[in-house]
């Protein structure tokens, strides 16, 4: 489904991604974790071409993201993305946030798009908020709307870029719950997150990144039981002790 092959990226002299490779098969949930500045967000933004990369190749269903002849807009319309800061469109009502791309990109009729949007709002538990503006919602609600907005395009895969890191602790669960449901429905997901509870519950594999490199890429049980590298071990112990403090 998503195939990342030896991708490298530089900001000027500084190399942010070093020969990164990873595979996400259809229906798989892959969690990408690592310390801040490790390049995990940059990598996930390369997957739908929001960030350019200089070397390597990324294929989505055999379509090459970096290739000149690829219609990037069309490709992106089939890959959903959820951002750390939600990025709902503040000048549009919730329902319009969900319908605008359906109508303008996929050419759906307004009634069809609205019907779809309402179904998805029901799924994320926000039907009653359809006519509100994003600023009237809490962070957790906004992020659920953002997930619904991405799903409205009927994506073949979903990318999550730290979907819960801008949220207050009490709102993290409501967003993760929606993501768990998605995963259980068989959605192909690539998730950059520090939420190891989520990884334990639904991930198939965990990718650990540090300093722009993919350090580990292993099934989740192996990863949590015995991280193969010191760096991953250190990272995990920090994250988990932090989680214990909060719990």
């Amino acid at each position, binding site marked *: 489904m998503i195939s990342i092959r030896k991708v490298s990226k530089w900001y000027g002299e500084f190399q942010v991604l070093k020969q990164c490779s990873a595979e996400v098969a259809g229906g798989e949930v892959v969690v990408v974790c690592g310390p801040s500045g490790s390049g995990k967000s940059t990598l996930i*933004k390369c997957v*739908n071409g*929001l960030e350019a990369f200089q070397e390597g190749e990324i294929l989505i269903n055999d379509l090459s993201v970096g290739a000149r002849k690829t219609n990037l*807009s*069309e*490709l*992106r*319309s*089939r*890959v*959903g*993305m959820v*951002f750390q*800061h939600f*990025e*709902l*469109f*503040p*000048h549009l009502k919730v329902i319009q946030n969900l319908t*605008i*791309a359906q109508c*303008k*990109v*996929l050419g759906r009729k307004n009634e069809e798009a609205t019907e779809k949007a309402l179904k998805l709002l029901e799924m994320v538990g926000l039907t009653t908020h359809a006519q509100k503006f994003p600023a009237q919602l809490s962070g957790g609600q906004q992020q659920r709307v953002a997930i619904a*907005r*991405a799903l409205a*395009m009927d994506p073949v895969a979903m990318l999550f870029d730290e979907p819960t890191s801008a949220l207050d602790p009490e709102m993290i669960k409501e967003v993760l719950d929606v993501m768990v449901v998605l995963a259980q429905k068989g959605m192909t997901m690539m998730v950059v997150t520090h939420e190891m509870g989520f990884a334990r519950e639904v991930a198939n594999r965990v990718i650990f990144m540090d300093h722009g490199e993919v350090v580990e890429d292993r099934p989740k049980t192996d990863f949590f039981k015995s991280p193969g590298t010191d760096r991953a071990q250190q990272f995990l112990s920090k994250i988990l002790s932090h989680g214990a403090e909060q719990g």
Partner: protein
Amino acid sequence: MYEFDWSSIPGALPFLWQGMQRTLEITAVAIVVGIVLGTVIALLRLSGNWALSNLATFYVNGFRSVPLVMVLLWFYLLVPQLISNLMGQPSMDIRLLSAFVAFALFEASYYAEIIRAGIQSVSRGQVSAGLALGMTKGQTMRLILLPQAFRRMIPLLLTQAIILFQDTSLVYVIGLAEFFGVAYNTGNRDGTLVEMLLFAGAVYFVISFSASMLVRALQAKLAS
């Protein structure tokens, strides 16, 4: 002590009103064309195309670096020539036409900068969100960035319009009978120049001041 003589003002009111209509016409044309053209120039400046963006920068810097009076005179001397070359004898008052053109082009350079700053004030994440949904760059600009940018810019655009309204008085240099020109000529004719100009000043003040009060109220409403 100076003896004020206000008696000639009531009789001049119909002419002053005609002049005010001219003033408002020029203001309206300059605002509409200025904002449309200004948006195009702002988009060219942000286009990322080297040639187009430099062309737009040159336009903006050019117009912002010369006095408006001079632009008015240039266009007054140029536009009649151009028009008659292109379309034969114009049916419209050539002075009014050249004032329209000069103001519209001049104001576009100011509006372009306001609009560019407005567009840049919308966060990069909004662009990413539009693109990630499969929108083209053009759609993202039109459907996501511009609506947000214009909402934020409304107070600045209106303030610029008020300045523009006052600046229209400069068209007296090409002998066009707008509000200030009528006031000046009538006052001169009747020997009541001081009274007439005081009156004209009061009218400009009342209109501009009420407009800026409105802008302030609007700003407070937008901020809430």
